[in-house]
C-alpha cells in the first residue's frame, strides 16, 4: 500500500530525514518510536504534504501512485489521514461544518454525490459514540478551546468519519488520560480493516498494549535504525534507546 524509499527531506534548510525506507501493507499496523527530535513528526508531515518540508530525495508510492506528486488535499482524497501531534484550532468554523465539508470533498473526488445531510447526521452520531464524544462538540469551533485530550479525541473522530486507507497517528496517545487512551485505542481498532493500514507514532508501550503493532521501527537521526516485532517495543520500554543507537553507530545521548 505504502512504499517509502530512501526518503530525504529538509525544513528551513536543515536536513531532517536522512534516507527513510519503509513498506506498509494493507491490514498492517506499524509503530514508529524514537527519541525526541528524531524526525517522526517530520516524516508524518511530509507524508501529509506539509509545504514547509522540502523533499530532497527518494520516493513515496501509495497504492501505486506517486504520493509526493499530490497536493495535500489530493492525498487526503486518496485516503491518507494524519492525526496531528498538535491539532490546529480554527475559530469560526464549527466541527460539524468542517467534517461535512471534508467528507463531501472526499466523496466528490471519488465521483460520488454529496451526502444527504440527514444521513450525515446519522453517521456523525454513530462515530461520536465510537469515540465517546459529546454531541455538543460538533457545534464548537474546530479544536478552539478544546483541552489537550479533547483535541486528540477530535482527531480520531475525524478519522472515524473520513475512514482513511492509511492513517498516521502522531502521538495521539500523549495527553490522554487512562480512560481516554482506552477509548481512542478502541476506536482505532474498531476502524481497522484488512484493506487499510495504520502507522502509530508513539513514545509509550502502553498504547501498543491496546493497538497491537505488526512491526515496530526505531527512528533516530532521520533514519530507521532498527525494526522488529511488537516485542521490540517492550524491550525499548525496559532498556531505553541507547543500546539501539550504539548498535547503529550513533553517539548515545545525542537525541537528534
Amino acid at each position, binding site marked *: 500500500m505504502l512504499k517509502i524509499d530512501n526518503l530525504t527531506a529538509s525544513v528551513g534548510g536543515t536536513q531532517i530525514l536522512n534516507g527513510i525506507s519503509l513498506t506498509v501493507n494493507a491490514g498492517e499496523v506499524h509503530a514508529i518510536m524514537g527519541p525526541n527530535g528524531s524526525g517522526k513528526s517530520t516524516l508524518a508531515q511530509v507524508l*501529509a*504534504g*506539509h*509545504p514547509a518540508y522540502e523533499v530532497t530525495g527518494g520516493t513515496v508510492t501509495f497504492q501505486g501512485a506517486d504520493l509526493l506528486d499530490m*497536493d*495535500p*488535499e489530493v*492525498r*487526503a*482524497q486518496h485516503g491518507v*489521514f*494524519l492525526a*496531528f501531534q498538535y*491539532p*490546529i*484550532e*480554527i*475559530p*469560526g*468554523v464549527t466541527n460539524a*461544518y*468542517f467534517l461535512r*465539508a*471534508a467528507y463531501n*470533498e*472526499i466523496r466528490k*473526488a471519488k465521483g460520488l454525490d454529496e451526502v444527504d445531510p440527514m444521513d450525515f447526521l446519522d453517521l456523525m452520531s454513530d462515530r461520536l459514540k465510537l469515540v465517546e464524544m459529546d454531541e455538543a462538540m460538533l457545534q464548537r*469551533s474546530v479544536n478552539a478551546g478544546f483541552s489537550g485530550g479533547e483535541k486528540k479525541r477530535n482527531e480520531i473522530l*475525524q478519522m472515524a468519519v*473520513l475512514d482513511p486507507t492509511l492513517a498516521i497517528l502522531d502521538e495521539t496517545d500523549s495527553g490522554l488520560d487512562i480512560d481516554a487512551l482506552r477509548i481512542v485505542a478502541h476506536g482505532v481498532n474498531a476502524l481497522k480493516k484488512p484493506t487499510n493500514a495504520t502507522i502509530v507514532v508513539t513514545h509509550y508501550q502502553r498504547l501498543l498494549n491496546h493497538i497491537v503493532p505488526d512491526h515496530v521501527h526505531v527512528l533516530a537521526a532521520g533514519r530507521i535504525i532498527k525494526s522488529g516485532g511488537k516485542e521490540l517495543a517492550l524491550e525499548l520500554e525496559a532498556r531505553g534507546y541507547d543500546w539501539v543507537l550504539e548498535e547503529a553507530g550513533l553517539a548515545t545521548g545525542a537525541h537528534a
Partner: protein
Amino acid sequence: MSTTLAPDLAPQADVARQLGPDWLLPVREAALAEFSRIGWPTTRNEDWHYTNPSAIAEGKFVLAAPDERATGERRTPTGTAAHGVTVAHLAPYTFGQDWPLMVFVNGRFAPMLSRLGALQAGVRVTPLAEAMREDRDFLEARLGTVARFDEHAFTALNTAFMTEGAVIHVAKNVEVAEPLHLVFIADEQAEGTISHPRVIIAAEPNAKVTVIESWGAVGTPRHVSNVVTEVDVASGATVTHLKMQRESAAAFHVGTVQVNQAKDSHFVQFTFQSGAQLMRSNIYTHLNGPGCGSTLNGLVLADGTQHLDTQTRIEHVAPRCYSRELYKGVLDGEGHGVFNGKVYVHPEAQQTDGKQENHTILLSDRAQIDTKPQLEIFADDVKCTHGATVGRLDQAAEFYMKSRGISAEHARRLLVYAFAADVLETIENEVVRTGLEALVLERFAGVVV
C-alpha cells in the same frame, strides 16, 4: 435636464435653484455657498489623506435627471419595471422577505416596485419628494439638523441637489416589528450620472426600528451615489441601521451617516461594504444625552483595484455613554482599505466607555490597508481602548483543512468566513446575518493561492 458637475459650480447652482420646493431654497443656497468655500476634498485634507476623490470631481458626472417620471416605471407583461430593473433584479437584495420596501432605481423612487401598503400604526415611510411637497413642517424642522454640511463637501452637495430619498418617522413608544427596507439599484441608464439620495430617520422617545439600506446594481454602470442618511434617536429609542453596499464594480459610493442621540438611546449599525470601485463611508455619531451609546460594526471585502474607505467619528458629548466599534476587512488583489476611527471625548463626558477594534487580513501581497485610530480625550474619568491588527490567512489552519481533503480554494473561503464570523454574529437580524454569511462564503470563491 442634465448638467455636468464640474469644480466650478456656477451652472449647477442654477440647476439646484430650480429643484424646489421654494422653502428649501435658502438651505440649498447655503449648502452651495459652503461647497464653493471648501471645494472638493483633496488628499491634502487630513481626512482624505488616503482617498483621492478626484475621479468623482473630474468625472463629468451629470445630475440624475430630476424628472418625476424619469425611471419610466411601467407594467410589462412580465411584471413591473423601472428603467431596466424588474422585481427579479431585486431578488438578490431582498432576502426573500416581504418587509416594507422602498425601491429607488437610478436615484429615483420607483413606487410600483415598492411595497409600502400595510405599515404598522405609528410608522410613516414617505418618499422624500412627496414629503417635500406635502410635509413641509416636519421636514423643515428636521432636514439638515442632524446632517450638517459645514466642512463636509459631499453632504453640502447632497443638500444642494437632493430630491429623492426616504423619510422614516416612528412615533413615541412604537416598536416596529419588521425592518423597513430601502433598496437602491442602478442599471446602465445610471451611466455617467450622480445621484444625491437623502434618508431621514426620526425615532421618537422609546421607539424601536430597524432600517436596512441595500445598494446594488444590474450590470456595471459607472456612476456616483452620494447618499446622506440622517438619524435622530430620541431618548430611550433604539435605531438599528444595516447597510449593505454592493454597488457596481465601476461605481463610486459616498455614504454619510450622521446620528444624533439623546439620553439612554441606542444606535446599532452594521455596514457591509463589498461594492464600488471607490467607496467612502462617513459615520458620525453624537452622543448628546447621558447614558446613550453607539455600536458601529462593519465588514469590508475588497478585491481587484477597489478602494474602500471607512471613517467613523464618535463624539462623546454627554457623560456615561458607550461606543463600540468592530470593523473587519478582507482585502485581496490590489484592494486598498482605509479605516480611520476618531473618538472625541468632551470634557463633560465623564465615565465614557469606548472600545474600538479594526482587524484586517490581506489575501495578496498587493492588497493594502491604512488604519488609523484617533482618540482625543478631554475628560479624566474615561475608559477608552483601541486595537488594530493586520494579518494573513492562517497557513497552519489552511494546511490542516487540506489535510482533511478540503480543497485549497474551499479552505481559503472557509478561513475568510471564519475571520468574518464574529463581526457578522453581531447582527441581530437572523435573515440579514445568514444572507451576509452566504455572501462572504461566495465572495472569494475564485481566489487561488
